[in-house]
């Protein structure tokens, strides 16, 4: 009995302390806001925002509500994070493996890359890409096309726009392909376990992914038109490319800086992971007659991934949070649109900052959950 009480009392005290701290700040904020005649509430979210945003993934203009403006900022943050995560993973894996290359030049170039980009502050890198590198680009009227149909200019990267007809049918066809791939994989495993036969699962999967959507095109169910960027004159000396899609230079600079910076950390995680698999594993696998490809796929990678995933999750979280530096270069992310313009126009600092903090927390927890799920999936299942 007394043991239980002894255990409970410290926990109770801690809980009380935490509650007291929260209570103190709440009451303090309330008193001070009352004294200054500031009211508190989230009703403003339904009001008309009356400001426009440069770049939005959903339909938005100033006649929509602050809640919609929040969504615009959130989606822009997610966009830059997802792009950043994809690119930093690709670059990181390549650099990480290059650091283990037997080739002196490749190995050392990769090492220099890591040491350089990891040790220059991120904000400085963002400024470099935005103010130095991208500002040196030509004006739209002087731009030579890149890959024939895209134009990289100081006003943005203009690319062709795809106009789909019956886009949903294409999505269904891809879904159908994915489902059949799952079935084939299960069948292949059964075959392997029961008869020891192997079928080329990867080739079949790729084939299915290509054939299903292709059928929808050939039969004319889905149609695709491409709108190429066309030079348009706004005034005597000012031009833009209309018709196509414009990727703002702010987004380019941010994705470049974030992925190049975070890639250095991912590269180190990959290197550590591969080096963390003991050499004996490889030798043992070779001795039972596995091919080098099989060794990498069946022996090395499954073990390396277990070491790579947890620290890489951290890097993904960092990248997402670092994307808030966007505000420094006018990319309309959550911080710029919501904790910036919306905060300024409404003056509701406590409400907006609390929502923004909660949003980043939720984003980070979501990434964390996803990565933990993946980590658990590839963990050693002891039988």
């Amino acid at each position, binding site marked *: 009995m007394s043991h239980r009480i002894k255990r409970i009392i410290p926990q109770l005290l801690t809980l009380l302390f935490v509650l007291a701290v929260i209570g103190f700040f709440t009451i303090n904020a309330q008193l001070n806001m009352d004294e200054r005649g500031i009211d508190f509430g989230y009703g403003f979210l339904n009001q008309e925002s009356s400001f426009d945003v440069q770049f939005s993934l959903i339909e938005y203009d*100033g006649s929509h509500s602050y809640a919609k403006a929040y969504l615009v900022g959130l989606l822009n943050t997610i966009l830059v994070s997802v792009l950043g995560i994809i690119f930093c993973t690709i670059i990181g894996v390549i650099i990480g493996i290059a650091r283990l290359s037997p080739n002196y030049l490749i190995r050392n170039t990769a090492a220099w890359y890591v040491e350089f980009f990891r040790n220059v502050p991120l904000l400085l890198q963002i400024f470099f890409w935005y103010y130095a590198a991208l500002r040196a680009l030509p004006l739209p009227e002087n731009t030579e096309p890149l890959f024939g149909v895209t134009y990289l200019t100081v006003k943005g990267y203009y690319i062709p726009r795809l106009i789909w007809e019956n886009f949903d049918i294409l999505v269904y066809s891809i879904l159908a392909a994915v489902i059949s791939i799952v079935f084939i994989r299960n069948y292949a495993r059964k075959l392997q376990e029961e008869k020891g036969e192997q079928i080329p699962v990867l080739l079949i999967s790729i084939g299915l992914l290509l054939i299903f959507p292709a059928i929808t095109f050939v039969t004319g169910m889905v149609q695709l038109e491409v709108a190429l960027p066309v030079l348009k004159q706004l005034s005597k000396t000012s031009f833009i490319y209309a018709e196509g899609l414009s990727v703002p230079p702010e987004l380019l600079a941010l994705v470049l800086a974030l992925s190049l910076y975070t890639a250095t950390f991912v590269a180190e995680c990959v290197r550590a992971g591969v080096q963390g698999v003991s050499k004996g594993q490889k030798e043992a696998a070779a001795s039972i007659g596995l091919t080098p490809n099989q060794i990498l796929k069946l022996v090395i990678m499954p073990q390396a991934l277990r070491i790579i995933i947890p620290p890489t999750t951290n890097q993904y979280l960092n990248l997402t949070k670092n994307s808030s530096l966007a505000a420094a270069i006018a990319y309309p992310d959550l911080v710029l649109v919501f904790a910036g313009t919306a905060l300024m126009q409404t003056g509701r600092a406590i409400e907006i900052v609390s929502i923004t903090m909660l949003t980043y927390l939720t984003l980070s927890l979501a990434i964390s959950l996803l990565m933990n799920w993946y980590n658990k999936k590839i963990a050693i299942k002891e039988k």
Partner: protein
Amino acid sequence: MLRTLKTLMYLLTSIALLVSFETGAFAAKKSKTLKKTQKMGFVRCGVSQGLPGFSNADASGNWTGVDVDLCRAVAAATLGDSGKVKFFPLSAKERFTALTSGEIDVLSRNTTWTLSRDADIGLTFVGVNFYDGQGFMVRKSSGITSVNQFKAGVSACTNLGTTTELNMRDFFNSKGIKYEPVTFEKADEVVAAYDAGRCDTYTTDKSGLAAQRIKLSKPNDHIVLPETISKEPLGPVVRQGDAVWEDIVRWSLNVMIEAEEYGITSANADSMKSSDNPAVKRLVGAEGELGAAFGLDNDWSLRIIKQVGNYGESYKRNIADTGILPDRGPNQLWTKGGILYVPPAR
């Protein structure tokens, strides 16, 4: 020994209490903010991060500008020395939070007076020290001479979190033009982006355009379009809830404007004490008890005029002589065709 020390302590405490009780009657007028300011020994003033003519720091950290002069006037009135100001450079985004949270006591940062700002978020605007309006700057080479020549797809650089952002939308919407707003937190970043060709036009208050033009690589390649698309009365702001402090800031501004009206300058202020005009005598503290209403001495207004100068001197020094806006336009006294008109100090 210990006993005598204790008795002495008691004695001292009771004397201190008595004294404070005596002066209490006088201090009742004093505002909380004024008390705090006098205790700290400086006025905490929020200014811009660099807008020539309004609030701008030189290489050695000396602040100049009409907004800066307002804070200096408050310091001269409350502390007796116009130099006792601590400046807090704030972005448009930070300014109101800094004021409501008590980080600064006066916000003098080319801030537009609007209903929602005045009524909604715990702020009080005390007056107008510059009548402005929003305009557009474009490259001369573009051939654009009027806002009516903008076409769909035009990109406009401006500051984040300002009325400019809202006016711009109203304007382009009324013209039915789709535009690309590019908003930066710092004015310098806006200028750099516009200069590099990122935007076709730069829009903000016309005084701001005139001031920022100097920072462009080739100022003469750019023009400010003639149209004004909004009313922007700029003025100092205080926190809501301290009416006496609000009055001090309001009348520090009014005194500067009225001093110009009566021809009192920093040079002739002392000699004006013997003027025949009672209104002049009141302004230089030779007649009446104007300061007592705020809990200040009677020379408060004289100090403002002597140390900072009247509004006309401040305008000339900061805005006209620097070549930003030599023509005073609406910011001329009502007696000379402008709209500067303040209630009488009496």
